[in-house]
């Protein structure tokens, strides 16, 4: 039987973290759970420690991508076969985890991405700002054209990884927005990615990493990151 780890990256999620942990526990899978606390300044860490859940606490705030990478490194060190990321803000419905794990195994894929746009074009119960919807659409179309395969949700953080992908991403992961560039690196490195239709919800509390000035920085950073991945792949093919 595969050893499964569920990680919950959290940064200032005191309003949602307990509910997310309870929901993950109720999924009924034989798995381990670890919360990656990205140096929260609220009561997140205290709440997790009271629940006696395994916790990895960053000494400084490193960003969402780095928090997931810490989870990947933890999974690699402890020899897990599969790892699923469930955000600490409550957007991801843990009931969808078994579906992701089954899809990963049945399709012999390395990475399963939970897509909110595969369910009849709806995003479930989640309302997405129009500007972000346009951004997701642009990057999804761009990525689909580059890899010649349909990708609908480039910003979904609801992902499952197998052992091979865990090993690769433990060393290759963008620190801030682990999105389209990460998927592109995986595809160019020969990993198989599948999208799984999932329901996503409104965040219970906290602040989105795509809010404020970061939403302006995001498309530029992602474009540069995609270009860097393309250049790297082009140079590697020429060798």
């Amino acid at each position, binding site marked *: 039987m595969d050893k499964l780890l569920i990680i919950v990256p959290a940064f200032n999620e005191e309003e949602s973290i307990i509910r997310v942990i309870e929901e993950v526990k109720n999924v009924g899978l034989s798995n381990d759970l670890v919360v990656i606390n990205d140096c929260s300044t609220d009561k997140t860490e205290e709440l997790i420690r009271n629940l006696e859940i*395994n916790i*990895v606490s*960053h*000494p400084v705030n490193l960003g969402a991508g780095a928090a997931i*990478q*810490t989870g990947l490194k*933890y999974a690699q060190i402890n020899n897990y076969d599969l790892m699923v990321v469930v955000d600490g803000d409550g957007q991801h419905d843990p009931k969808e985890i078994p579906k992701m794990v089954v899809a990963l195994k049945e399709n012999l894929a390395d990475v399963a991405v939970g897509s909110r746009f595969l369910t009849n074009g709806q995003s479930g119960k989640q309302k997405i700002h129009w500007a972000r919807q346009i951004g997701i659409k642009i990057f999804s179309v761009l990525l689909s054209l580059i890899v010649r395969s349909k990708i609908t949700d480039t910003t979904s953080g609801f992902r499952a990884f197998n052992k091979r992908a865990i090993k690769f991403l433990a060393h290759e992961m963008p*620190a801030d927005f682990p999105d389209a560039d990460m998927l592109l690196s995986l595809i160019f490195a020969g990993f198989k990615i599948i999208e799984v239709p999932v329901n996503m919800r409104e965040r219970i509390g906290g602040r989105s990493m795509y809010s404020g000035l970061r939403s302006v920085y995001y498309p530029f950073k992602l474009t540069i990151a995609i270009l860097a991945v393309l250049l790297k792949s082009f140079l590697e093919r020429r060798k």
Partner: protein
Amino acid sequence: MSIRVQLAIVVLALLLLGFIFDLLRRKKISEAITLWWLFIIILMIFLTLNQDFLSRIKDVFGVALPFSVLLLFSSCFILVMLIYFSMKISVLSIQIKDIAQEFAIFKAVASENQNKKEQQSAK
């Protein structure tokens, strides 16, 4: 370029040289960076004192004043240094991130092992 301007540039370059060596003495700057600064200061003094050479470069670049050549060299140097520091900062950020992640993981693993030991001894 007048003697007064030449003198001012040489004095400023020597003061900068003294300041850089003082930083090195107090371990506020590395030897590698000091070498970069030493190279540019010597180049500036050489170009300032060697008027014939400066005039030849001025003609090559098609600029009116020899002083502009010095400014051009300074700007190029600053640009190279900025790129170098951007590179260094990026590398350092990745290294700090890796250290922080490993520190957090080992601390968590040590705590998990401690809890297991406590549970075993309680049994």
